[in-house]
């Protein structure tokens, strides 16, 4: 089997802890109900999350604690309260994903440590898209140094592991779109996208995604990140495109798009389809393996 459904999903704690404070936050929170239904209807047996808020340096990390239980307080929005979590992880898949990444030349490792801090972005997606641990999940980190080539390889390794698992898998990229945030406290009632330019870029990206043009969005990620401060250079789009097959052959469905503290947050699904009505081109190579960086510039 392979990927049966993909999501671009928001990452901010307001949606989990304080949605009622802003009409837009509430709408985006509530839109998860339809996404949950689509996830259930897909028959997915596993939800794999790539989180731009779980930063790694030593290659790529896969959560492999079968039951992470702890509490999370957001670094900025600690006044909103505490996110208590009790997750169910598919540890066999974590091992398989790690091995697949290593086979493609990536530095990768599983992490299985009591008290390991699961990041806010993963928790927002896990708790709103998959409450009560309806299906097991996987979580993979975002390497801060990885650029497009390495991130594509990480996505392809996920696809290797998914195909080897024989399971129906849904994948989610937890990321902001535009990531300019208010740097002074605001009244939640006054929240809006930080700038009109950011809003326009977000809407253009979402327009492409609604047309199912994920690969086109992947190709545009660098420009979007430059123009709209995309979170972690929008590498979540590279990962998502690679794990879903690097095509434009999807049915896109936008559940919601709102501002959260000035950033652009959207919930959108991509369902694979077999026929393509779109032509597209690859502007850059798509690497199959990663060669590493340790000995390029050193000594």
């Amino acid at each position: 089997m392979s990927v049966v459904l993909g999501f671009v999903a928001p990452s901010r704690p307001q949606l989990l802890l304080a949605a009622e404070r802003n009409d837009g936050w509430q709408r985006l929170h509530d839109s998860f109900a339809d996404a949950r239904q689509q996830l259930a209807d897909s028959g997915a047996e596993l939800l794999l999350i790539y989180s731009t808020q779980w930063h790694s340096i030593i290659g790529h990390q896969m959560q492999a604690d079968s039951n992470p239980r702890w509490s999370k307080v957001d670094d900025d929005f600690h006044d909103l309260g505490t996110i208590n979590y009790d997750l169910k992880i598919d540890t066999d898949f974590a091992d398989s994903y790690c091995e697949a990444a290593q086979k493609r030349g990536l530095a990768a490792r599983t992490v299985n440590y009591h008290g390991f801090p699961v990041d806010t972005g993963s928790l927002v997606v896990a708790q709103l898209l998959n409450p009560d641990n309806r299906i097991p999940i996987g979580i993979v980190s975002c390497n801060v140094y990885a650029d497009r080539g390495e991130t594509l390889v990480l996505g392809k390794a996920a696809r290797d592991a998914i195909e080897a698992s024989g399971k129906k898998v849904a994948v989610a990229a937890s990321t902001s779109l535009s990531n300019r945030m208010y740097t002074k406290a605001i009244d939640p009632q006054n929240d809006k996208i930080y700038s009109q330019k950011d809003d326009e870029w977000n809407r253009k990206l979402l327009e492409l995604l609604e047309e199912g043009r994920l690969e086109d969005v992947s190709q545009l990620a660098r420009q979007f990140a430059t123009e709209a401060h995309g979170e972690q250079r929008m590498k979540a789009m590279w990962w998502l495109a690679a794990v879903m097959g690097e095509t434009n052959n999807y049915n896109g469905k936008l559940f919601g798009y709102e501002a959260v503290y000035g950033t652009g947050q959207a919930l959108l699904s991509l369902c694979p389809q077999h026929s393509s009505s779109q032509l597209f081109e690859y502007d850059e190579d798509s690497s199959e393996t990663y060669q590493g960086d340790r000995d390029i510039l050193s000594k």
Partner: protein
Amino acid sequence: MSKGEIVSGCIAPHPPHLVYAANPPQNEPRSSGAGAWQALHDGYQKLQKSLDSKDFDVLIVHTPHWKTRVGHHLLGVPQFSGLSVDPIFPNLFRFNFDLEVDVELAEKICSAAQQRGLEMHMMRNPDFRVDYGTITSCHLAHPQWDKQIVCISSGSTHSDYSNESGELEMLALGEATREAVEKSGKRAVLLASTSLSHRHFTSEPADPEDPEHEYIYNSNQSAWDEHVLGLIRDGKCQQILDEMPDFIEQSISECKEGALTWLLGALGVPDYPAKVYGYGTVIGTGNAVVEWRGPKQ
């Protein structure tokens, strides 16, 4: 009440590797003792000895690993304890901590910085997990854990606006810190928890402490580190500030998180030499243990 003072200002880098290598009882992983970071270990021993000879009440640490974007935040809960697991190096750092916070001084710093126009917040959630940078720098500088701490987050003005804007904020935050310390009557040690050059290798040897795999990421990084250390030794801190935007950009310096500029601001931009106790690399990044005596008179 007598006037408080900053008795020492230190660069106290926070690679968890250094705690791991020391094998303190609080840390769960055990190191091989292969010695990759010996120069920094020795540097911290010298700093510990120096601080042990001083009379002080509180450690004030500015940490890059509590990142905030809505201004600068300070811990505002009197006590924290628990297990700190480094999300980046969990194989090296799983540290059982128990620390007390000087909330009164933190509030004074918060207030003084607000009066200078900075966006400031107190963190009052008791479930908050203290970042590993704070724990690491405090432990390495003064492992007795017998002093209260004040912890200041790393605001993101450098990233959200520009290096120049960030530098101005950090100088103001440093000045506010000094003013608050003086009003508090406390004797404070300041810790800038920061590396210098900050490009990591993205792979790790089987034994993370294997010296054969430990060296600077590239010669550009070491050239910048040596240059900045030269200015520190020569007491040319204003020149450091003048060159900081270039240092940040050209060496991917962790000083972008503001700790060193905060420290220099609190010390009144020293024009006298500091003691460089040690310099070494950790997974390719450049790190120095440095101490200035109190503020410029």
